[in-house]
């Protein structure tokens, strides 16, 4: 079984995420790391491969060249190869361009199963898998918190606004997994050492059918409305007392 896991390299949460007022896009100049949400998809891919006893897990991404450093975390976790679509013409790509580039890379790989994380950690979007599924003309299951592969079909349990659905689709299929599906493993020292030697391929926009259209624009950035009188305290051992004082002040106790 061949599994492709689509991941995004995002600015490290610890170093802070901000929009660049010049380009009005996310500032990606700081350290990049695999989006936390995507590590669940990597883990699920590895588990499925291990359960099958054979197969291959390929991580696929689009981003600047140095995103390859971030993809190495997935390789260190156990993924076999990394494919990064990187091209100056893809800078500023939105959903349309990203879906086109990933679909192009996935077409070359022809996996049985394509996995995504539940949302992007920076843009907060939860739309890419459905767009990629449309480009590839494959069935899609989103937000799966349980996944079973049996024979040539995949079944996912997923939460909606109304409770839990169970959906089955024939392979090849596209599945986005929720962050409740597993606990991603930490890369072992051996995994980290071995990651650098694993195949890491770079594709250009031309390799995946050219840059897509950009369908959206950013008109203006502005600060959020001012907060109320929010208070933030560090617990010095008296936090419980302070909360009670606060609640009493608000007549809530």
């Amino acid at each position, binding site marked *: 079984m061949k599994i492709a896991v689509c991941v995004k390299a995002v600015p490290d949460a610890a170093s802070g995420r901000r929009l660049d007022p010049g380009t009005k896009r996310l500032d990606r100049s700081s350290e990049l790391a695999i989006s936390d949400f995507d590590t669940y998809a990597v883990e699920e891919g590895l588990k499925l491969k291990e359960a099958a006893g054979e197969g291959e897990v390929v991580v696929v991404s689009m981003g600047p060249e140095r995103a390859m450093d971030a993809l190495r975390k997935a390789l260190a976790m156990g993924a076999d190869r990394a494919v990064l679509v990187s091209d100056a013409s893809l800078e500023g790509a939105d959903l349309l361009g990203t879906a086109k580039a990933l679909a192009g890379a996935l077409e070359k790989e022809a996996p049985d199963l394509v996995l995504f994380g539940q949302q992007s950690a920076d843009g907060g979007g939860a739309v890419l898998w459905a767009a990629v599924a449309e480009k590839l003309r494959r069935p899609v299951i989103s937000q799966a918190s349980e996944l079973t592969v049996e024979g040539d079909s995949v079944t996912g349990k997923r939460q909606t606004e109304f409770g839990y659905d169970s959906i089955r689709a024939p392979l090849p299929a596209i599945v986005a997994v929720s962050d409740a599906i597993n606990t991603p493993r930490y890369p072992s020292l051996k995994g980290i050492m071995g990651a650098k030697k694993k195949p890491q391929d770079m594709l250009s926009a031309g390799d995946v059918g050219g840059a897509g259209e950009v*369908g959206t624009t*950013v008109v203006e950035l502005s600060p959020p409305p001012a907060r109320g009188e929010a208070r933030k305290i560090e617990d010095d051992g008296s*936090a419980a007392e302070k909360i009670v004082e606060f609640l009493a002040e608000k007549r809530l106790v």
Partner: protein
Amino acid sequence: MAKTLVFLEHHDDAIQKGPLGVLAKAAQVGADVDGVVVGSGVKELAARAGAFGAQTVHVADDERVAAPLPQPRVDVLAKLVRDEEYDTVLFAQSILAADVAAGLAARLNAGLNWGLVDFDGETGRAPQLQDTVVVDVGWSTPVRLGIFRAGALDPSETGGSAEVRDVAVELEDFSTQAEMLEQAHAEQQGPSIEDADVIVAGGRGLGEPEKFALAEELAKALGGAVAATRAVVDAGWYPYSAQVGQTGKTVSPKLYVALGISGAIQHKVGMQGSNVIVAINKDPNAPIFEFSDLGVVGDLNQIAPKLAELVRARKG
């Protein structure tokens, strides 16, 4: 004049509040607004959208599109956009709507903006990075797609009536491959959290399912109900009926105490209407502190039991 189509998602014989709010917004900015309902046995409920501002409601009433799966809906909407020349298609955020909108974007090569909280007919407003920056967004394609954030818009009943028009359903081969084995129905179990004056909610920061006892103890002391985030419900720590957020309940208690909750947007939209929000979290950078009236950086294992004890003592 913009010609706008609104995806009218329905469940259990009712159009959802979200898309009705989107209808109201689209009508307010002066667009010609129509709706589309996709399902089986849905003609009657389609007609009701007229009272909320839809001029025409297209109905794709077909057994094959009965299950709320996205890809057949992309087929229906794509055909409508082409045949009826809609330039704008608007959605209210939901698991289904996001997948339909994204599939449609790829099918029509149409720009998609999501997380919208407002729209003036030209520009949308979409706060980003956990609401730390407000972004005004636009479109550069002939067809514009937008998803509004859950709960961002309120429906307004105008009392009009809509013309209901049947739409022939033509499906792509790959659109019908996914199959609904079991469809979600609202589970009614346990006391409703929507009516509680006080809610103590637990998230992944509790560390393990057993730690919900801390939330329960504090809720009992405060005379409130216990709620949970999507992440812990999805992980099986607490029942879905207690979930607050985009795919759970929307609550507005007098007091909302968040234990070990980071404060993702999907949670925020379900509880931001609370009068007073108190958050305890060990991560000083947790987004929840951005919208808490009182944020406490500390160990909830220490603070929550002591707080319960102090509240009990105060009540005598």
